[in-house]
């Protein structure tokens, strides 16, 4: 039930957004009806709440975090909720006329309702985390509202400033709430309010207090965070009337009041809150005096009044709380009314500059009258509500001992009062009277009655409350005060006349001073203009710009786009990772003992000649590659020798399969390099000098050394029992193959092989993608010099002899392929080797001028490769049909004529798939690279 109060406006925000073409009136109703409904729901709770009971509704949301959707209505939240809803309604009515010829009216209504929902959630939430949620929500929606006139740079700047300040404060509040939660052990408001002593005694009290206050002060535009509020005045007037007088800026005050029982009463609270409050009070009032923009004046006066309320809460005496709550309501009423008046004037006259405005009383007496009432309330003239709360404020200022010095608060109060009277007078006189002959942008006339109605209603309220306070508001104030104090509210009398006492004298002083100040305003302006202006806004912007600058520089310094640097860091990190575990404790000893007990010694017998020879050649070839890197062709020859030597090494290390595969892979790789080299001819400038060779050599040397060292030590360590022992036992009886490596590849670890074939096929596709010429790269045209040669390397005529040999070799190679493929299961060979062999063969054919060899009958080799993959998949899946896991290899022995009975594991079929995939992928890669730069239609992917 209670949730409706928040949900209705939320839902209500949809209608205006949906019916954007509707008439303003329809839109207004669609927005207003849900609000009226919500208001009635809240009103239904009034009797209970005003009787002092606390109405709750709970719903778990994120139990793990103690975050519940808890609504909790006590006097305070009731008062604020009412304020939000009632003033919200009036603002909606006002906006209907203020923006009736604006096609963005729907957006305004939607956002206003959205804001209303989040504001209600804020004041009604019974869980501190939930409160934070709505808190940030208000900041975000207000960002959109302030920036409503998106075309106006000022609006954008204002919106972003407001967001940065309030959202930042919100995060501080978030941290503070988390701390509170840790101290109290719950975010539930009832428990937090009850745990005051615990919190105040806790070691984290100070950080908690500071963080929470940061949140409150930023939101309520307290000094020194006040500067965002004037900048936010570029919002449409209804928004200012709603957010910046009645609701959002009151959120901070609300928070102070809400957590008053938990946080207040300590010296820190008194010191911080009342100091900030007093400074804000003075700064606001002072700055308001010099504004020429109506809304600017109102904004600063709002700041000053918020400071006043904060100061009252800082006093932390029961009566001060009464005054604070009372003034919240009063300020909301007269300030909202004044904003509306300012809006009307702006709307009718077309300017808000008080230096231009004059003598409007003649044309718009009604508006004038209402504005005068509200302004007098602001000034604290008797018989108006502002007067009452200001009296109470004076009384409290006299009573308080907060800052030690007895007279300072009363003095501040009077000064601020006088300034308040001053700028209120300016508002009245310079707009409606002081007629001079300054031309007005438009000839004004009274707005439609309905546009005056909202402001009027509020002004009347000021008057009514001012005259019969105890009749009208006491009953509503008492429970709120009780909620703030978490104690029965003090008995107070909101009488108008308390006899002649000090507060009255102060009021008179303030009035007189204000009038005097207004009299001498010209001189005062002159004096003020001579002062150096200190603008918080400019400081903020400066800080902002500085942050951005450092961020840009830092980003560019780190993310500088240099691959060499990224790789260097990666290698160094790997080095650290490899070495770190050895450095932990007395590592010398550790290492030495490692060497000793692992028996690392110089090899007893010298290695045999063959191995030594391979080793020497390998080292030589490697160094040759390094040195010849600038001569691509030489480098290719060099690295291919290295590759061949590596395959020799494999053979020597009892790994015939590796030797074979390495050999064939090497052949294909050389082919690729040779084909690609012409595209990779070094650019005019070889760009090596950039990276200091010595340092890199050092890094590389250390890395090589460490990896070699690790390998050595490991090699000397005894072999541990390994899963391989199983293969030795199971390969023949269960895998039906003698060649363990092949059995592992196609059976034990067939899944790896599958994935690896997939990698190879994807690599082929990647080559096709990378060299896709269906759309030439953008800047090819800009660098015509680098156009790849438009020749097909396979097209050139090659020596007759080579062609004849190639032809002769063809059947032999084919036969050999079959042989390698079939025997693979028992002897070195298998799908990869065979596939590579076929590929090499085809490529040789092509080089020999058989142009078609790479695309026999022009069909698409990608199909071979994918078909191979499919076969492999299907073989694996076949076992599933027999209820066995994927890739379970079956086995049957068949009898062929002549050859006799041979074992035929299904793994063979798998290997066949692998074979096809390898052939397809390899040939696709080779021929695509070979044809790169040739006419696009050569590209196989365009063959379809």
């Amino acid at each position: 039930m209670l949730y409706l109060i928040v949900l209705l406006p939320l839902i209500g925000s949809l209608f205006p957004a949906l019916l954007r073409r509707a008439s303003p009136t329809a839109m207004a109703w669609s927005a207003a009806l849900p609000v009226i409904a919500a208001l009635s729901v809240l009103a239904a709770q009034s009797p209970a709440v005003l009787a002092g009971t606390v109405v709750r509704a709970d719903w778990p949301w994120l139990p793990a975090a103690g975050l519940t959707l808890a609504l909790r209505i006590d006097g305070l939240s009731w008062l604020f909720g009412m304020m939000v809803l009632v003033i919200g309604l009036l603002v909606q009515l006002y906006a209907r006329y203020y923006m009736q010829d604006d096609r963005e009216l729907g957006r305004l209504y939607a956002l206003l309702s959205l804001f209303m929902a989040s504001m209600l959630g804020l004041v009604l939430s019974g869980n501190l985390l939930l409160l934070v949620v709505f808190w940030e929500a208000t900041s975000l929606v207000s960002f959109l509202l302030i920036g409503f006139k998106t075309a106006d740079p000022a609006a954008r700047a204002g919106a972003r400033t407001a967001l940065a300040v309030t959202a930042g404060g919100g995060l501080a509040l978030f941290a503070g709430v988390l701390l509170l939660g840790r101290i109290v052990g719950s975010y539930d408001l009832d428990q937090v309010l009850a745990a005051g002593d615990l919190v105040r005694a806790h070691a984290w009290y100070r950080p908690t207090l500071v963080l929470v206050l940061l949140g409150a002060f930023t939101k309520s535009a307290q000094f020194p965070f006040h500067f965002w509020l004037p900048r936010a005045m570029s919002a449409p007037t209804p928004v200012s009337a709603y957010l910046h007088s009645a609701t959002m800026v009151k959120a901070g005050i609300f928070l102070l009041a809400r957590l008053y029982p938990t946080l207040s009463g300590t010296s820190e609270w008194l010191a911080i809150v009342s100091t900030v409050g007093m400074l804000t009070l003075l700064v606001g009032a002072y700055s308001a005096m010099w504004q020429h923009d109506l809304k600017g004046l109102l904004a600063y006066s709002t700041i000053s009044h918020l400071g006043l309320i904060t100061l009252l809460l800082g006093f932390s005496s029961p009566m001060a709380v009464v005054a604070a709550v009372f003034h919240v309501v009063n300020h909301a009423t007269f300030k909202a009314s004044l904003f509306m008046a300012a809006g009307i004037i702006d709307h009718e006259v077309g300017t808000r500059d008080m230096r231009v405005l004059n003598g409007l009383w003649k044309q718009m007496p009604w508006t004038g009258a209402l504005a005068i009432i509200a302004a007098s309330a602001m000034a604290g003239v008797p018989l108006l509500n502002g007067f009452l709360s200001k009296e109470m404020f004076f009384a409290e200022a006299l009573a308080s001992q907060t800052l030690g010095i007895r007279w300072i608060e009363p003095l501040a109060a009077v000064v601020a009062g006088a300034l308040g009277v001053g700028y209120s007078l300016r508002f009245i006189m310079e707009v409606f009277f002081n007629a001079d002959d300054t031309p007005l942008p438009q000839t004004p006339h009274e707005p439609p009655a309905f546009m005056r109605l909202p402001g009027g209603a509020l002004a009347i309220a000021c008057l009514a409350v001012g005259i019969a306070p105890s009749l009208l508001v006491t009953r509503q104030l008492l429970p709120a005060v009780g909620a703030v104090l978490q104690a029965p509210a003090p008995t107070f009398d909101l009488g108008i006349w308390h006899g002649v006492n000090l507060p009255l004298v102060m009021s008179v002083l303030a009035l007189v001073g204000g009038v005097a100040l207004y009299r001498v305003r010209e001189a005062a302006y002159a004096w003020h203009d001579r002062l150096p202006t200190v603008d918080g806004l400019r400081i903020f912007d400066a800080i902002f710009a500085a942050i951005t600058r450092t961020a840009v520089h830092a980003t560019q310094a780190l993310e500088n786009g240099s691959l060499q640097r990224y790789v260097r860091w990666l290698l160094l990190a790997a080095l650290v990772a490899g070495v770190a575990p050895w450095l932990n404790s007395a590592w010398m000893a550790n290492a030495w003992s490692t060497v000793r007990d692992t028996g690392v010694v110089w090899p007893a017998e010298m290695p045999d000649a063959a191995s030594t020879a391979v080793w020497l050649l390998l080292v030589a070839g490697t160094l040759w590659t390094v040195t010849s890197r600038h001569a691509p062709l030489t480098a290719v020859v060099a690295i291919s020798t290295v590759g061949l030597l590596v395959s020799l090494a494999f053979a020597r290390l009892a790994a015939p399969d590796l030797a074979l595969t390495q050999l064939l892979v090497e052949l294909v790789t050389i082919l690729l390099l040779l084909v690609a080299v012409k595209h990779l001819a070094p650019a005019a400038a070889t760009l090596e000098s950039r990276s200091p060779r010595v340092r890199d050599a050092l890094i590389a040397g250390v890395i090589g050394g460490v990896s070699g060292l690790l390998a050595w030590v490991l090699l000397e360590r005894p072999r541990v029992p390994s899963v391989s022992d199983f293969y030795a036992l199971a390969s023949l009886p269960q895998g039906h193959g003698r060649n363990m490596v092949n059995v592992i590849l196609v059976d034990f670890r067939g899944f790896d092989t599958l994935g690896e074939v997939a990698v190879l096929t994807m690599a082929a596709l990647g080559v096709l993608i990378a060299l896709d010429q269906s759309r030439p790269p953008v800047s090819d045209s800009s660098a015509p010099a680098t156009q790849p040669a438009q020749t097909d390397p396979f097209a050139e005529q090659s020596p007759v002899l080579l062609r004849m040999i190639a032809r002769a070799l063809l059947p032999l190679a084919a036969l050999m392929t079959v042989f390698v493929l079939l025997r693979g299961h028992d002897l070195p060979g298998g799908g990869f080797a065979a596939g590579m062999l076929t590929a090499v063969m085809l490529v040789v054919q092509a080089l020999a001028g058989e142009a078609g060899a790479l695309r026999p009958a022009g069909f698409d080799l990608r199909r071979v490769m994918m078909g191979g993959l499919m076969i492999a998949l299907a073989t694996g899946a076949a076992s599933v049909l027999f209820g066995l896991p994927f890739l379970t290899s079956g086995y049957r022995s068949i009898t062929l004529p002549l050859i006799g009975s041979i074992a035929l594991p299904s793994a063979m079929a798998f290997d066949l798939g692998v074979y096809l995939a390898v052939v397809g992928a390899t040939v696709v890669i080779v021929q695509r690279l070979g044809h790169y730069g040739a006419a696009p239609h050569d590209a196989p992917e365009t063959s379809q």
Partner: protein
Amino acid sequence: MIATSFSVGVLSSLAPTPIHQAFARDLLVLPVLLPLAAACLSLLTSSILWRRILMLGTTLLLVALSGWLLPMADLGQVLVYRLGNWPVPVAIVLSLDRLAALLLLLTAIVATGSAWAALRGDDQHGPHFHAALLLLIAGVNGAFLTGDLFNLFVSFELLLIASYGLLVFGGTPARVRSGVQYAVLNLVGSSIFLVGIGMLYSVTGTLNLAELSQRVALLDAPSAAFARSGALLLLVVFALKAALVPFSFWLPAAYSAASPPVAALFAILTKVGVYAIVRMSTMVVGTDAAHRANLYGEWLWPMAVATVAFGALAAIGTRSVRRLQSALLIVSVGTMLASMAHGSEEGLSAGLFYLVHSTIAAAAMFLIAGLSEQRDAPRRWTSVLFFVGALSVAGLPPLSGFLGKVLMLQAFPADSRLPVMWTVVLGSSLLAVIALSRRGAALFWGAADAPETSTLTRAREQRRPVPRALLSRVPPTALLLVLAAVTIGAGALSDFTQRTAQQLLAPSQLRSQILDAPGGR
């Protein structure tokens, strides 16, 4: 709360029984096989329509499948699939625990969004987009499912080579440049990966993660040092995938150059790195292997914090909305790992919660960024999407990102690291808000400054066709709706991640459940 009870209801309505579970176990290989097969088929057909149907159909199928597997895994018993029907330490096993199930589902969702978004024309620059995307998914799912170290390597290679292809797809200079850097870095990474595997194998004689963790715990001092070296080398590789500082600088260039759907899909790739780190740190160098308790944690913490800091700076320091989103992706990864680094159950659970949120949010935001650059796209709806997306990536209320941050900040123990953690997380949020509001205002509030022009040029560069509203606006909207669901069902999700964390932090049970899997010849 309705949603909670609702989702609970859904879970219970499926009422997973042992029979279901056995069936589920038999399907474990499908998340890898389906995309593989679909990829093959997609190359055998020549009509883009069929390829698109295959791609989108497969991703949707995967959503359904993994959505069905999740409750099975949630029974607490690890599902083990022995490929080739060999006994466990020998066979490559696929194992599905809560974590794997969660990430499978996440992958499927993101992949669907990306695939759908690609239909608007990003897949038309050549015939191989669909196959590449499917192979990438196969690789990712394989990485999440496999219980074998070398098979993890193979899966990584598959998803990497596929990602290279997707990144340079379309071949704009920006993509080629960043593609080269991305590929070279990861090729170096692969070599490091192999060395690490080798060292671990040489001292333990096994590749099965479960058995590996058992043996690692029993090693003598020098062998243990080797194992630690190997494990740390793997950490380097995984950190490279997860884009942790100092390995995160390649990411903004690459992700901002890729086409929006690809970038959205890549949002999951960093999570593969995170997953691998979590898996290794809980299972292999796990907290219960006494003499190397939380080996990764002490290295992870500083890296994670630095990552958040760098990401936040990069977010402020850029004028391009895509780079901004890339930076925020880095921030999110750093944040979740900072929360996980501590090795506490709550921290792990909170990190996983945030992982789910931030991945979807990032994917959505990459798509939205793509929309926002199209001057002819409908602005109003796009701007709404951008606003909501910005909230979610910045982790602001009311979306689940905020809840994730609440969980992470709460879970963090009150030790000396606490202030650092809170400052970093909240500070990065603030910077994110500032940066996003700036970009948003510049993009949608008609301040024609630098990004506009540059994005214009890029749009021209890519010759994107005008997107049809359905294709271009639905996917991000759908992803944001998923986020909304996550937000409402946050209670259920956080309970699930809690259970996940418990399961992960009791590795001995995981181990025995995998090693004692019945069967074998």
